[in-house]
C-alpha cells in the first residue's frame, strides 16, 4: 500500500499548501479510523499481540503512573488547603480532591503526562515510523500478512483498553496521596477520609471519567499509529512521527476534554 503523501504537488492547491494539507490529513485520519474498525472486527484476530501491547502500555507504565498520581494527590491537597482554611472548610478537602481527581485530573494527567507525552504515544510513533522507513511494514505486506491488523489495530485496541485502567489507578493512587497529606495535617482516619471523599462522587462522575479515558486511549492509539504508519523521509521522519504523535494526541485530547465535560455537565444539570 502506498503511504499517505505528505506534500501535495506544487501549484495544485485549493486554498494554500498548509490549509490543503490540514484537510488532507483530516481526511486520511478519518479513512485510517474507518479502516481500524473494519480490521478490528474481522478475522483473524491477533489476541496474543493485543495482550502483549496491553502489557507494554499498561503494566510497564505503572511505576510512572503511580508516581504521577501520588504527587498530584499530595500537591493538589496541599495547595487547596489554605483557601479552604480561610472559610474554616478544611474538612471538605477529601470531597474536593475526590471530585477534582475523578472528574478531571486523573484522566487528563494520565493521558497527557504519562500515556501521551511521557511514554506510549511517542513510543508507538517512533516504533512504527522506524518499521516504515526500514521497510519492515512492506515486508509484512509482501509476506501476505496484514500489517495494519497486526501493528495498528492491536495497538489502538490496547491503548483503548489500558488508558481507562490507568486512569482509575491514577485516581486511586492520587486519593491515597491526598489521604497521606490530610492524615498528616488533620489527623483524619482512613475510613473517615474515604467516606467523605466518596460521599461527593456520583456514579455519573465515574462514568464520565471512564468514557473520557476510553476516548483518550483511542485517540492516543489512532494519532500515534497514524503518524508512525505513514512516516516518511528516513530517520528524520521517525523523529517527526514520534513528535507529531504526541502533539496530535494532545490537541485531540484537549478538544475531547472540553467537549465531554460540556456534555456531562449538561447531563448533570438535567438530572438535578
Amino acid at each position, binding site marked *: *500500500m*502506498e503511504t499517505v503523501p505528505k506534500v501535495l*504537488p*506544487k501549484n495544485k492547491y485549493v486554498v494554500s499548501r498548509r490549509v490543503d494539507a490540514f484537510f488532507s490529513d483530516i481526511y486520511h485520519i478519518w479513512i485510517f479510523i474507518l479502516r481500524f474498525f473494519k480490521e478490528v472486527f474481522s478475522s*483473524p484476530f491477533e489476541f496474543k499481540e493485543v495482550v502483549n501491547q496491553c502489557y507494554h502500555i499498561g503494566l510497564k507504565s505503572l511505576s510512572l503512573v503511580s508516581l504521577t498520581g501520588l504527587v498530584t494527590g499530595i500537591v493538589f491537597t496541599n495547595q487547596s488547603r489554605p483557601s479552604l482554611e480561610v472559610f474554616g472548610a478544611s474538612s471538605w478537602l477529601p470531597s474536593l480532591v475526590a471530585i477534582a481527581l475523578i472528574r478531571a485530573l486523573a484522566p487528563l494527567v494520565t493521558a497527557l503526562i504519562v500515556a501521551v507525552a511521557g511514554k506510549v504515544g511517542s513510543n508507538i510513533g517512533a516504533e512504527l515510523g522506524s*518499521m516504515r522507513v*526500514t*521497510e*519492515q511494514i*512492506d*515486508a*509484512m*505486506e*509482501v*509476506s*501476505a*500478512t*496484514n500489517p495494519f491488523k497486526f501493528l495498528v489495530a492491536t495497538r489502538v485496541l490496547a491503548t483503548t483498553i489500558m488508558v481507562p485502567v490507568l486512569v482509575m489507578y491514577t485516581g486511586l493512587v492520587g486519593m491515597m496521596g491526598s489521604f497521606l497529606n490530610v492524615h498528616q495535617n488533620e489527623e483524619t482516619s482512613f475510613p473517615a477520609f474515604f467516606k467523605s471523599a466518596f460521599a461527593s462522587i456520583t456514579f455519573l462522575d465515574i462514568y464520565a471519567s471512564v468514557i473520557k479515558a476510553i476516548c483518550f486511549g483511542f485517540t492516543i492509539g489512532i494519532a500515534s499509529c497514524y503518524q508512525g504508519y505513514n512516516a516518511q523521509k528516513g530517520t528524520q521522519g521517525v523523529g517527526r512521527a514520534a513528535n507529531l504523535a504526541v502533539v496530535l494526541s494532545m490537541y485531540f485530547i484537549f478538544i475531547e476534554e472540553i467537549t465531554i465535560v460540556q456534555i456531562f455537565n449538561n447531563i448533570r444539570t438535567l438530572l438535578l
Partner: protein
Amino acid sequence: MIEEERNIDQENPVITIRDLYKSFGDLVVLDGINLDVFKGENVAVLGKSGTGKSVLIKIIAGLLKPDSGLVEVLGQKVDKLGLRELQQLRLKLGFSFQNSALYDSMTIWENLEFPLVRNKRNLTAKEVKNAIESVLDDVGLPQTINQMPSELSGGQKKRIGIARTLILQPEIMLYDEPTSGLDPATSIEINNLIKQVQLQYNTSSIIITHDLTCAKATADRVAVLLNGKFYITGSFEEVFNSTEPNIKTFYDYNFITN
C-alpha cells in the same frame, strides 16, 4: 557453481508487463515498459541508482500502484485485486528487500515463524519447527535461530531475508539489490544462493541490481533500464556486447564504480 538442470517454459509467462507508466510528481520513473518473465527463468534488471528498478518490483508486488499499464502476475492483474486476493497472490511471491527488512524486535526464529503461522494456520508446532529448521539449512545459517537481527552480518541478514520468503514456498522471487553493500566473497555466496533457490524451489525471479557480476552469475536474461525504458533485453553476453551508446555508458559507469 551449481549444476543447472531445468527448463524455461517460453510459452508461459508468470509475469507480464505491458506499457507500464509510473511517475512521482513531475519525475517520470517508468516510461512505458514491457517485460515477460517465463516460468523457471531468472531475469536481471540492470540500471543505475534511481532509475526505477525497485519501483518496478514494488509494483509487481502490489506495494505501489502504477499510473497506467498492465501488470499480470500468475495470470492476475495486480492493481485490480482486492486486499484478500492480493494477499493470496503474495503467498506465491517472495520479496527480498535491499536492506533485508528483518523484524528487528524479533529473533530469527520469530522472523521466520511470523509469516508461516499467519498464512498456514493448521500447522502443528512440530511442522513449524521443521519448516524453520529446513529453510535455515537451505540458506546455510542454522546456528542463527535464536539470534536477533542486530547480531548478524549484512550477508547473513540477506540470507535470513531470503529464508523468510522461502518459508512460504513462493513460485516467484523478487530480489531488490541482493548484493549491494556486501564484500565480493559474500556477494558470490548470495549469487550462488539465488541460483540454488531457482533450482531447489523451481522459482522464476526478477533480480534488481546494478552489479554486473551478480547479473552474469544469476540471470538467464538481462534487461537494462535507463531513463524509464528497457533499452535492451537479452542474454548477458548480448547485452554486454551491445554497441548502443546508452548501454555502453552504463557499463563504463559500472566498471568505474565497481
